[in-house]
């Protein structure tokens, strides 16, 4: 595949691995948080840690859209499908996120809910056009990458006066999450989660640009290297981070310059600002309630806001006690530190959200990397 294979080249990877090994200083440890699930997935899928020296440790961050979705939000969507009998459209990964009463959207579907997986908001609009007698709700999740398409869908629905279409908006904001992690006692006071730098988001940054991270580099003295989702991107970003740490710099650097600019996609930002406004607070799985960390639909578009339309109230539901998703999302624990990882909690029967999406830290480790736990290397 042109423009893909070039970023997965094994020989280049070896060259980069050699450079990183030569650059790391003896007796020094380097801990980098990859914020995005896309990076987590690439690291596990391509076996990246096999190429890195032992002193470089990657800490998984909270940037997996379905992982940070709290139970209460999924409950709202299930309520819409089962009680309000709407056609509920959503992205595929959302279907298996555990909710209350042992339910998930997938299980609600088997109970008769009309729940449909879509690849794009355009599909959801089409379903609304094709079913004028039914209420159609798009369960919108994700970070800044998926927000502009939702904004466009709402504006399109208004142009067409699609009276039966609405959106359950659960879009969240990346900088708010990074800020919360940097402010957490584990990072700031106790130092139990060493973070020497961030591998910055790829797709999110195409929209918001690299500028929002400058605050973290400056204020918290943490280097940020924005990196693409291909394995060579990640290797290159690690090399750049090691350099910054060695040189005592804390800057925002852009490895993903083929897609990310400092300002980002201004057109997309405008659309988002037209349709959405900041929520005063939003509950995240793992990070708990974070002020100004999510978006809601503006009053001008109120008729497309499923929360207003169906008078939905958010009810917070605690996670399963044994589940460590919260600590894993903050980088405090690794998947294998969780007692129920791989035993009670597996991709087939996920207890926590991190075991659901292939971008979740637990699912990625279980599906691609759990052989490392056995301590045996048989080739």
């Amino acid at each position: 595949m042109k423009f893909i294979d070039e970023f997965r080249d094994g020989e280049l990877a070896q060259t980069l691995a050699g450079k990183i090994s030569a650059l790391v200083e003896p007796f020094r440890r380097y801990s980098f948080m990859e914020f995005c699930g896309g990076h987590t997935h690439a690291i596990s899928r391509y076996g990246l840690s096999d190429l890195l020296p032992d002193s470089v440790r990657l800490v998984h961050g909270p940037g997996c859209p379905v992982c940070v979705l709290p139970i209460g939000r999924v409950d709202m969507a299930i309520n819409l499908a089962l009680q309000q009998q709407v056609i509920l459209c959503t992205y595929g990964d959302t279907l298996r996120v555990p909710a209350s009463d042992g339910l998930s959207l997938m299980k609600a579907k088997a109970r008769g809910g009309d729940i449909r997986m879509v690849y794009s908001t355009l599909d959801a609009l089409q379903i609304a056009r094709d079913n004028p007698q039914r209420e159609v709700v798009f369960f919108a999740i994700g970070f800044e990458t998926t927000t502009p398409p939702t904004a466009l869908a709402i504006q399109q629905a208004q142009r067409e006066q699609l009276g039966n279409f609405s959106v359950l908006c659960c879009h969240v904001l990346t900088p708010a999450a990074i800020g919360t992690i940097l402010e957490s006692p584990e990072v700031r006071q106790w130092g139990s989660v060493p973070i020497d730098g961030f591998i910055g988001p790829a797709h999110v940054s195409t929209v918001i640009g690299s500028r929002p991270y400058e605050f973290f580099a400056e204020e918290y003295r943490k280097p940020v290297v924005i990196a693409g989702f291909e394995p060579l991107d990640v290797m290159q970003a690690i090399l750049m981070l090691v350099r910054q740490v060695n040189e005592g710099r804390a800057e925002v650097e852009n490895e993903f310059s083929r897609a990310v600019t400092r300002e980002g996609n201004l057109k997309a930002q405008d659309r988002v600002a037209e349709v959405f406004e900041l929520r005063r607070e939003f509950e995240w799985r793992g990070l708990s309630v974070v002020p100004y960390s999510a978006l809601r639909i503006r009053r001008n578009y109120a008729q497309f806001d499923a929360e207003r339309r169906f008078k939905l109230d958010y009810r917070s539901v605690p996670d399963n006690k044994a589940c460590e998703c919260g600590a894993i999302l903050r980088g405090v624990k690794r998947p294998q530190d969780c007692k129920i990882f791989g035993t009670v909690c597996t991709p087939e029967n996920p207890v926590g959200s991190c075991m659901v999406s292939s971008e979740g830290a637990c699912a990625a480790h279980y599906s691609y990397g759990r052989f490392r736990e056995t301590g045996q290397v048989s080739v």
Partner: protein
Amino acid sequence: MGEVREIRSAYVRPLDLKHGRVDLTHGSGGRAMVQLIAELFARHLGNEYLGQGNDGAVLPVPSIAGKPGRLVMSTDCHVVSPLFFPGGDIGSLSVHGTINDVAVMGATPLYLAAGFILEEGFALNDLARIVESMANAARAAGVPVVTGDTKVVERGKGDGVFITTTGVGVLPDGLQLGGSRARPGDRVLVSGSLGDHGVAIMSKRENLSFDAAIESDSAALHGLIAALLATGADIRCLRDPTRGGLAATLNEIASQSGVGMMLHEKAIPLKPVVAAACEFLGLDPLCVANEGKLIAICAAADGERLLATMHAHPLGRDAALIGEVIDDAHHFVQLTTAFGGRRIVDWLVGDQLPRIC
């Protein structure tokens, strides 16, 4: 005394195969059903056994080298959507799928049985195309459909047509293939590129159609298998990696045999169009279904020989040695990535693509 009149034979209007539709009478056991069987099923699929017209077919069992051998039987339900796809349709698929299930046991497939569940309102024209394609596939494979059944369900209670086929074959005494026979050191071969069927189906899904120059690999593998068995190589196990793809099949064998596997990503044959489609759909090609591919596990010494035999067969031109069986108490299937790292190739979770076959 009334005069004796000749009873006129009733005029039977032939089935309207152009515009007609399946209705409930076609499954009711009355004349309409007999007509459907005669004018459609028997016309295309007919042979001396089906022609017996009884509730079951009486079949000769050929002996192998003067011995009776053992019977192998397998059954497969087909619910693929869409019914017609590039490179095949539910008819040919239902023949190939079951022949392959019998053949991978090492048996020579002999006969097929076919059960049809039709939905009221289904176009007879489409049904005729499906039956014709089934007949062509059976003829080409030399495995006749010898008995069958048809039921009709009300509109909305089915989805056009579902087909169940059952196959019977004979297995020579002494030949033993099975998923529990893999041993550390054995070689793993695949007969060609992976994921073609799944991507071909996906490219025609209603909510997803995209243009990909890709056809399903749906094919009957018994010829290729016979050629492999004829080499006398020490073959431990043959499988056709359908749902769940290569990943599911190898995990199944690994756990049945109590071994691990080490695959090499660079060696795994993949068409660029399949790789590209999987890339943008977020699928792992190793988990995508195939309908005309074979996984063979054999003793290390026979690996190259089997590979050469595959290459010499039209269905094995792109065959490759993709890895080896290793000792592993955890029964992991692992992969050395082209990137230079290592990862697990796990079972598929959930269903990345329902109703693929």
